[in-house]
């Protein structure tokens, strides 16, 4: 009895700090954002007061912000476009990361830690510096653009601009988020039992069948984890479109940032954030539901 209570106390002691941390720094701020999305913008920035200040200024709650969101298809369109960019980035990351993760998992044990270190090495330099480096690599005077435009020119095509384009944005997104796909995939693939593949071979499966029917289904948890780690940050990213994007590359992250740092419209920024969060939650719910359906089906 006493030991049970002690155990419960220990468990409480261990879980209380992270729970309190999440309450204080996640739940409470999230609720503040929800509240802000129903307030009026302050004339000079910030939020209009909730209680009547007694001088005829706007105050209280309103549905105006969400109405503004739906008043024009524009805002929905930016959401759709951002989801497409996030999906593209995730897919490219997956295709590029899978072989890398597989190779690391298959390499001799004494090399693996070093290879993983190489994957995370870029984090040693600042994110913005790495993105600015892409400005130089993709710039019109760099070898890449010159070679490409030389070849295009030889075939009589117009020269293209690599920098300030949707292509540059995609390159930046994939480059920055690639390690977040490689690492969970590697952690998953490393644990696979090689005997399973031997068994499959003994049963007559060719290389493709061994991958598609054994390795791939077993790696799905890693695929899902990596995809979430890429998809969600890409959705909110504003720095990469700002730096590498052209004249049509505004994404939802840029729009939200503008509301706070550009046009003094915090309530609308809050509304956009809430809509984004709801979209992501709905997507995560859908993925979980699909996973469950798969399992029960199998």
């Amino acid at each position: 009895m006493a030991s049970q209570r002690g155990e419960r106390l220990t468990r409480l002691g261990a879980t209380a700090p992270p729970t309190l941390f999440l309450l204080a720094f996640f739940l409470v701020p999230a609720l503040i954002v929800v509240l802000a999305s129903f307030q009026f913008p302050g004339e000079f920035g910030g939020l209009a007061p909730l209680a009547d200040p007694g001088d005829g200024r706007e105050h209280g709650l309103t549905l105006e912000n969400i109405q503004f969101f739906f008043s024009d298809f524009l805002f929905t369109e930016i959401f759709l476009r951002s989801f497409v960019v996030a999906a593209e980035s995730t897919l490219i990351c997956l295709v590029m990361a899978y072989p890398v993760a597989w190779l690391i998992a298959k390499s001799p044990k004494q090399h693996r830690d070093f290879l993983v270190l190489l994957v995370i090495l870029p984090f040693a330099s600042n994110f913005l510096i790495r993105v600015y480096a892409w400005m130089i690599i993709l710039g019109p005077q760099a070898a890449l653009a010159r070679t490409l435009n030389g070849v295009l020119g030889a075939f009589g095509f117009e020269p293209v601009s690599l920098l300030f384009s949707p292509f540059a944005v995609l390159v930046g997104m994939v480059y920055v988020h690639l390690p977040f796909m490689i690492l969970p995939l590697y952690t998953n693939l490393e644990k696979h039992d090689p005997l399973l593949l031997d068994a499959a071979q003994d049963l007559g499966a060719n290389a493709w069948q061994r991958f598609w029917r054994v390795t791939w289904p077993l790696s799905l948890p890693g695929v899902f984890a990596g995809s979430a780690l890429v998809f969600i940050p890409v959705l909110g990213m504003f720095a990469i479109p700002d730096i590498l994007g052209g004249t049509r590359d505004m994404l939802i992250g840029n729009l939200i940032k503008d509301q706070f740092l550009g046009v003094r419209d915090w309530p609308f920024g809050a509304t956009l954030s809430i809509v984004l969060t709801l979209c992501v939650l709905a997507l995560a719910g859908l993925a979980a539901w699909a996973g469950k359906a798969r399992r029960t089906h199998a």
Partner: protein
Amino acid sequence: MRWLLLLCLAGAAHAADTLYLYNWNNYISDASVARFEAQCGCRVVRDYYSDNEEMLAKLAAGASGYDLLVPTGNAVEALIRSRQLRPLDKSRLPSLKNLKPEFLNAFFDPGNRYSVPYAYTVTLLGYNIEKLAALNLPTDTWALIFEPRYLAKLKGRVTVLDSQRELIAAAMRYLGYSVNDRDAAKWNRARDLILRAKPYWAAFNASSYIKELTVGNIWLAHGYSSDMFQARADAKKAGRPFHIGYSIPKEGAVLALDSMVLHKTGRSPELALRFIDFMLEGRNSSELTNLIGSGNPNRAAMRYIDPEFFQASADNRAIFPDASTLGRLEMLRDLDRRQRRILNRLWTEIKLR
């Protein structure tokens, strides 16, 4: 107990001897700051912003303790109306007399109760002189960034400011309207003009156009005169085979008069006043022009300014506009929240299409 008291005293003394200056990036010379520190026996702690809205957002989020800010007119207006500024004790500012009268009594602060002009920039066009000459293009009109007949020769080599107010203002001037006109129909016309020109632009850019001009990737940029001054100097220093020039379009442009103001939450208003008076002295003020290329509202600074700035050229006319050019420059006024939202939707449309 005694050490605690000592610590408190030291802390108080420390606060009184430190000036917290919240200024634009690259908008004061290190030499001026070092001289002020030596003169007052104090420390100047600098913090930077790259946009008025960024500064207002930070203050609205509760940032406090800044003694001195250097906002542009419309932001001064917003700060005054939201009662965030401390009125100036002018008896402490003997050098106020140095300011040119045409820069006093601006719309945002009649009688200069809260603000003292610091320097100004003009939003204009900076360009690669050799490239534009080779393409036979004019350099003194907004048509360059708005008219497809010119842009066809510059496709992918043009950036415009990533700023709602500034880009719409340029379009409004080109269409012959005031930059402060709030008529939605005129804003829509400006939007249409921008959307027609947009396919030819490389990017909306607020930060890297200096570098892009300097290395020759971009041949024409919509931006601030002080940035163009820097791009010109950088290209020269790097020994590029081309030169950067800049000029105020003949249709008129936006003038940004930046002023020194005291924030209410600052703990060293005395020191801030001393700093304002220090920056009003001719020699100190002249460094804003000599080193940064800002326009200078200070009469006493004129004799310390490099004579090169007074030679007749388009570049110099952008730093010291003559009376007729000055008449075509306008300062932006603050918009109310409903107007901001209308413009916001317009801008989102511009960005998306």
